[in-house]
């Protein structure tokens, strides 16, 4: 429940900032942009880190490349209540673009300390590290799907809009991806 609310809290807060600040930012108000950055930069970074397979520096580059795009296109955002998913989609796309531009193999340095585990069971910690390593080995498009689902909190419809797929296509792809990870980790 707490993890679900984590995403919900962001969505509700996004509505608040959208109605007040987005129009001002779209008309060139730098202070309004500052408020949007303060509110969403970390969320965009979280998505980019996952898309980049844990490469935090590359993720920072992606987010910094995303903000000028946001600034340029903010006036095209038709529904200001959709600011957060719009921002996170731009960030995810920019992270994929960074990966393509670098054309390098991402070396994932995993932090073996579990930073947000809610349990004390060592077996859980080990499984979590294994899962993070497995996520790091996925293709960028698959990591984008996971980032937008589990970090951004997108539902099937939002995932479909962001990835250019139907909601049912999103669900089946997510199921196949989950099943593949389970097989890889022998997790029955």
């Amino acid at each position, binding site marked *: 429940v707490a*993890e679900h609310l984590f995403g919900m809290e962001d969505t509700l807060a996004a509505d608040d900032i959208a109605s007040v600040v987005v129009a001002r930012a779209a*008309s060139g108000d730098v202070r309004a942009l500052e408020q949007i950055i303060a509110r969403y930069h970390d969320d965009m970074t979280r998505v980019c*880190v996952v898309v980049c397979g*844990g490469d935090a520096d590359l993720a*920072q580059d992606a987010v*910094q490349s995303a903000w*000028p795009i946001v600034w340029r296109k903010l*006036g095209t955002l038709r529904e200001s209540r959709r600011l957060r998913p719009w921002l996170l989609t731009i960030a995810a796309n920019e992270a994929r673009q960074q990966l393509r531009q670098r054309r390098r193999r991402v070396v994932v340095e995993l*932090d073996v300390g579990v930073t947000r585990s809610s349990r004390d069971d060592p077996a859980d910690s080990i499984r979590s590290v294994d899962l993070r390593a497995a996520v790091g080995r996925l293709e960028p498009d698959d990591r984008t799907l996971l980032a937008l689902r*589990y970090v951004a909190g997108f539902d099937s419809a939002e995932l479909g809009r962001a990835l250019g797929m139907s909601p049912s296509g999103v669900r089946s792809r997510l199921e196949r991806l989950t099943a593949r990870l389970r097989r890889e980790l022998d997790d029955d």
Partner: protein
Amino acid sequence: MTESGFEARLARAVREMAESGIRPFDPRAMAEAVVATRRGPFGLGHWPATREGRRWFAFAAVALLLAALLGLALAFLGSRPAETGRLAFVRNGDLWVANLDGTGARLLVAHDPKDQTLGSCTGVQWSPDGSRLAAEFHVNDGDPRHRRISVLSAEGASLGSFDVELGPAAVEGPGIAFAWAPDGNHLAVLAPQASVGGLWLIDGQGRLEQDLTLPQPYRAANPIYPLSISWSPDGRLLALTGCPCSSENNGGWILPMDGSESRAIQVPGGGNVLSFAWNPDGTRLAFGSANWNGPTQDPDTPGELWVVGASGGSAERIAARVELIEVTGWSPDGKWIAFSEPGAIDVVRADGTGTPVRVGANTNTAATRWSEDQRLFYLDVPQQQTAATPSELQAIASIKVLDPAGGDPRVVLDGVDAYPAFDLH
């Protein structure tokens, strides 16, 4: 989508990975850096997306800071007060900005003859707070009737646009008039043609808000030069000119924004109203006139400058000339009115006392702007060039300034296009 046990662990692992990348950041510095990346015509500058790029960016920022400090020191040593306002002007069809003293001239939007959408700039106006610009452009789609009002940030970023299709008579004539509302949130756009033109209210992103109704006599007429539109300081009234007169219609109208009935401005003795200027508190309105097409009671004074109360009443004649008169601006303290006639720019006391003062002789312009410190900026166009073709009018004019402390007018900028109005804030 509900999460199974494995999915819950997967979600937790993904979120833990996400958290590992969070770094402290300064939103203000980041916002200012993002805005500073915006350059050029509706385009995006290059944000230093790589670490090497950021190193160069930091180096450039330090260099710029040192240059700025050096400039400030020189300005201080020269005992010259810093200019706070900005000029916007057109040079060779491109949109430029500069400091009020002419320094720091910078190309903001370059037009490209090969660009299918962006033609040459033909007019510009700052928003009241100086944060945005509205500019009129030709549209290079082969149809000369197509014009675009673009709303830009002060850095040149496109915030939106509004396309207008002119009627045939307006293509070679007055074109479009546009004006920011005092609150800076709206623009009024006037392109009067019976078939396709009109009067519109658009927002700060160029989106249509309201299709305003022109007075019926205005709609029925073909537009003439000059076309003008101006807001009362409180934003409740629009004053517009641009249609030829008859005994009932002198071409000047006041439109209440609350939708109530518009009011015609009559030139005593007949004639065309050519342009309006509101006094700073919005209680009075100055207008210039010519007697084209109209009944003339006094053939020796065809060009006149009048002041009338915003709510009506009798107009008071402030000045008369042998040629037409266009009012070009009321000084910020409300004491002076600048006006133009062919070949000269004059300033006269708004209460009608004293004789007009000749500011610019042997010049040809209707573009003047008062700065907050009561200096009068004007576009000085060589007289012999006034009948030239549009391309021959590029970069031949100068922006000059007359200081109230006295002395001759001083050139601020050379190489300015002759007819597009400049603006300052």
